[in-house]
């Protein structure tokens, strides 16, 4: 099967521009969570908040760390992690869960991809409330570096988009990947410095962190939230991954985009 770059690029651009469509789809998903419940999506926030609080206090004690430094660290990192991993797991189902629509109407596949990412960004913004409380308690300093949250989050979104396109495409064909993905992410949560800090690991396993894509993705949002600029290496790493990821996505997407309808 030959690659068709034109239609694939067109799909991505047209899909990304159809913001009124993915904006609405993502927002409706959130709205449905509010329905007939008192606090809707804040239930997730609440249980996440309790989890972070309980774990944070206990582990700060176990590792003999100051809760005022450990809690904000755990909270910021874990919230970003939840956003990224949920996006990836939901991203696996992005096409086959919309089978009814895809088989009836012609619209850019990227629209669906954007709505998954957008929905998770909205949830993340809900969850940021936890961090607000934690930082009030711990007295996290808001500095100029805090503003770097914005470009950091944008980079995470741009990377989320290509990852969801690839995962959604592969999972349309091979449904097992979704299970594989959730297992990998579960493991990744523990080997990525989220519950523990990078310097706790020591020299020997340093490469584990230096070349861990997910660590850098988390850190470019986490560090600014904590009022520190992220390491330059993180920016470089994520930047390079963005570039490579999008090139790979273009190659794969332009080759298999037209097969998606047949696969689902």
């Amino acid at each position, binding site marked *: 099967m030959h690659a068709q770059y034109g239609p694939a690029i067109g799909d991505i651009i047209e899909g990304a521009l159809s913001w009124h469509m993915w904006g609405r789809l993502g927002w409706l998903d959130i709205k449905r969570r509010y329905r007939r419940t008192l606090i809707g999506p804040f239930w997730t926030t609440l249980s996440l908040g309790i989890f972070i609080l309980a774990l944070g206090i206990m582990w700060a004690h176990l590792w003999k760390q100051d809760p005022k430094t450990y809690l904000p660290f755990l909270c910021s990192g874990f919230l970003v992690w939840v956003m990224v991993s949920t996006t990836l797991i939901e991203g696996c189902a992005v096409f086959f869960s919309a089978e009814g629509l895809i088989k*009836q*109407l*012609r619209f850019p596949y990227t629209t669906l991809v954007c709505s998954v990412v957008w929905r998770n960004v909205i949830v993340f913004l809900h969850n940021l409330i936890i961090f607000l409380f934690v930082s009030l308690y711990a007295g996290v300093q808001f500095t100029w570096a805090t503003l770097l949250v914005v470009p950091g989050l944008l980079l995470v979104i741009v990377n989320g988009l290509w990852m969801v396109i690839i995962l959604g495409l592969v999972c349309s*064909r*091979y449904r097992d990947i979704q299970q594989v993905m959730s297992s990998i992410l579960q493991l990744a949560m523990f080997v990525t410095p989220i519950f523990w800090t990078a310097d706790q690991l020591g020299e020997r396993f340093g490469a584990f962190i230096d070349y861990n894509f997910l660590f850098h993705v988390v850190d470019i949002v986490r560090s600014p939230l904590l009022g520190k600029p992220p390491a330059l290496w993180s920016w470089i790493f994520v930047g390079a991954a963005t570039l490579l990821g999008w090139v790979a996505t273009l190659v794969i997407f332009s080759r298999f985009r037209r097969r998606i309808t047949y696969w689902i």
Partner: protein
Amino acid sequence: MASLVLENVTIDFPIYGSQKTFRHALFEKTTGGFIRREGTKNQRVTVRALENISLNLSHGDRLGMIGHNGAGKSTLLRVCAGVYEPTYGKISINGKVSPLFSTSPGLDGDDTGYENIQTCGMFLGMTPEEIVRKTPEIEQFSELGDYLSLPVRTYSTGMLVRLGFGIATSIDPEILLLDEGLGAGDARFAERANKRVDALVERASILVLASHSDALIKTMCNKAILLQGGRVIASGSVDDVIKEYHDLNKSVA
């Protein structure tokens, strides 16, 4: 000017069994070299749904597609909609395509009638401004009144049909693709529905209608094709094609 051209379009559907999973492909990849040397072919099962279909439709054409179940009518409609890109052959669509295979794509039971007007309208290709402009018309046709502010899961089947139908028939199509079975409800509604479909078809530049019913095709179309087993076995004027269809029915019976 709208146009819809199909050149030798062939559609093969791959059939994936439950055994054809990631594990399978993984093993295939690792052992692929050996197997290939032994000359075993890749056992991919496909079903040919359409074969060598050519169509050339331009402004004013109302094409009726007739044929038995499984003849390929719905698949051909979906090809015209751009949903399935042809395995072989070419398709060029000039103009906005409005496929009306279901009256309410994206309908969600928990959303209110108004919210669903927006969602379905959006999926049917309307811009937000267009939806706002068409909403009074949909309100009027569906006769749902205050119910439109309630979640649609509280609607009766008839109410749901009226809403979906009202939304679907409010679009301004260039190339309209219709699957039969659009429309239902009580007798009074059926009459109003027919009027609305007529007006909708009137607005369209090109119509493609798939149906079992020759009466429907006779009233709405000015040319027709007869499909069987994924192939066009007759095309031309409506009367000729319908005659062929009846001959085919007789020969089967």
